[in-house]
């Protein structure tokens, strides 16, 4: 296993890590001072050279995104921080907000300086009552210390940072739905282009970045782009937070090298710690429930954007969900399909109509009512929403459509026998224990 210096989690668990004093005692806000001593364009350049890529799902190069904001535009520039964290299997941004909110705030301050942005909105998911309160306390501390407000750390640069809490809608994590929600509307994604960096919030250029993405920015300014890029792979700088959940001994958030493989993640004693007694890995979702599933013989793969893309799946949001041999994959896929049907905003026909159909067909198969032709029908419905592979050909306004179809394509093609035996036996072979429960609520 490759050991890597911790960038994001270095203060977690330290007493007072979520306070300004605690943050400052480990060199906090030093990077902001360094940034303010440079020209804004230089800061963006540094982030470009660091090879930082977005941690929200798509892995888009961050510096390049900042570079899309038009120069000399008459409108204000906005920063929208995506703290909506709702992709099933993902829980890293929660931990950043709870353990080190000033790391995010320093990243926001540096980013706003680089973008000449004077208003940042942090859009956090409505269910984050505790994390949001911690973040609001940190924001108040930063104002009281003169970091935000009329001046930015003593420099004549006004900056308002405001947290807006969502109210329970996965779709508002999609960047244009997020902007609609920030504009006080229901979360209906917008057609792209134009992209938010050109036409975003209130019609003005807006950069949307994930919490973890921005939490990487202070270290890049403090230690330099070359150091940061060197932590990662050729095309992807830094470390990654991996959220490990499901059937595994030590679920949790781990800061890993981009070169760490899924197998190491699951079996290393300091990471996942292996499988529960007597259980084997059957299937692993590598990047949040939208990412195509991998089978047990595909785990020798680095948890990094390019490597996972080569396996026709994605690093996504870093949510790794492990399913063991006592788990029914039809039931698992049914639950995932139900999620997308529930969360579809209803704007595009293939997604609005297709996602409930996927759910109904899967339910029928799991409940022992499956018939010949059901699997073909299921795949047909999925293809109408988004064909696969490759990823990204969806017939819909936003990528929720793709996200709903990809699990269906991948589960059915990789575990066809299990689906077929449900239909042939006219029942779920796992009986009343389809999840093979273990843990606290065994």
């Amino acid at each position: 296993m490759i050991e890597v210096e911790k960038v994001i989690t270095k203060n977690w668990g330290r007493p007072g890590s979520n306070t300004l004093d605690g943050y400052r005692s480990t060199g906090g806000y030093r990077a902001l001072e360094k940034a303010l001593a440079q020209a804004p364009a230089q800061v963006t350049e540094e982030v470009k050279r660091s090879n930082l890529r977005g941690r929200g799902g798509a892995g888009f190069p961050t510096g390049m995104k900042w570079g899309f904001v038009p120069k000399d535009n008459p409108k204000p520039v906005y920063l929208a921080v995506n703290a909506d964290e709702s992709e099933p299997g993902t829980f890293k941004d929660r931990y950043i907000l709870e353990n080190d909110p000033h790391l995010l705030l320093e990243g926001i301050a540096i980013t706003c300086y680089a973008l000449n942005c004077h208003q940042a909105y942090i859009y956090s998911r409505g269910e984050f009552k505790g994390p949001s309160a911690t973040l609001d306390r940190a924001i108040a501390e930063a104002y009281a210390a003169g970091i935000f407000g009329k001046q930015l750390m003593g420099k004549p640069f006004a900056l308002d940072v405001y947290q807006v809490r969502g109210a329970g809608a996965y779709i508002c994590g999609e960047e244009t739905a997020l902007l609609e929600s920030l504009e006080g509307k229901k979360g209906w994604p917008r057609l792209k282009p134009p992209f938010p960096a050109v036409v975003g919030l209130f019609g003005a250029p807006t950069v949307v970045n994930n919490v973890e993405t921005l939490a990487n920015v202070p270290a890049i300014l403090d230690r330099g782009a070359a150091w940061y890029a060197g932590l990662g792979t050729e095309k992807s700088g830094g470390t990654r937070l991996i959220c490990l959940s499901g059937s595994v001994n030590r679920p949790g958030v781990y800061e890993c090298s981009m070169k760490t493989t899924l197998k190491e993640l699951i079996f290393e004693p300091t990471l996942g710690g292996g499988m529960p007694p007597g259980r084997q890995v059957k299937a692993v979702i590598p990047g949040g429930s939208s990412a195509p599933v991998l089978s047990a013989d595909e785990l020798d793969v680095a948890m990094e954007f390019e490597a996972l893309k080569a396996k026709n799946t994605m690093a996504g949001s870093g949510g790794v969900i492990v399913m063991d041999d006592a788990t029914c994959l039809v039931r698992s896929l049914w639950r995932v399909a139900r999620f997308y049907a529930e969360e579809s905003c209803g704007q595009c026909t293939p997604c609005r109509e297709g996602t409930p159909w996927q759910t109904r067909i899967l339910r029928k198969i799991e409940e022992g009512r499956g018939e010949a032709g059901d699997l073909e029908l299921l795949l047909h419905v999925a293809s109408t929403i988004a064909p696969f592979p490759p990823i990204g050909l969806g017939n819909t306004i936003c990528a929720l459509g793709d996200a709903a179809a990809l699990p269906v394509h991948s589960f059915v093609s990789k575990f066809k026998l299990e689906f077929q035996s449900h239909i042939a036996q006219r029942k779920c072979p796992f009986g009343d224990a389809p999840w093979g429960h273990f843990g606290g609520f065994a």
Partner: protein
Amino acid sequence: MAVLLFSAEQQQKFDSGLVEILSHYPADRKSAAMLPALRLLQSLKGWLPPAGLEQVAERLGTTREKAYEVATFYVMFFTRQPGKYVLDVCTNLSCSLRGAEKVLAALEQKLGLKAGSANDRFTLRETECLASCGTGPCLQVNEDHHESLTPAKLDALVATFT
């Protein structure tokens, strides 16, 4: 006589809360403050009564229909009064792999209520991933988070309901 929406004290909280909220938005974009304004209303009333939606719409310079449209889009907003305790149990994949369906069944039995239904005391719902998958199964009670549930923990929680 029309029933007053707010007590004097609530009205004062609503007014000053709105001033604070609106200070973070461009002056010509008041209606953007819809989510924070609805959250403020719900924190005062426990739900979003029609007269409250009307007042929010008026203050934000928009229509009642717009306020309803937003209020009904998001699952955490209540346009009908929910039970005293709103229980949202995550049954998404990671939590189900650690017993979420059993948590839900246990609650249905303890509260005498099916998931997806409500009475004066309880609203019991299945919810989607709460971003706490490593510490599942988990649930929220009136937005307070409870995780790594065991049968004993669930019993203790239920015992706190009055």
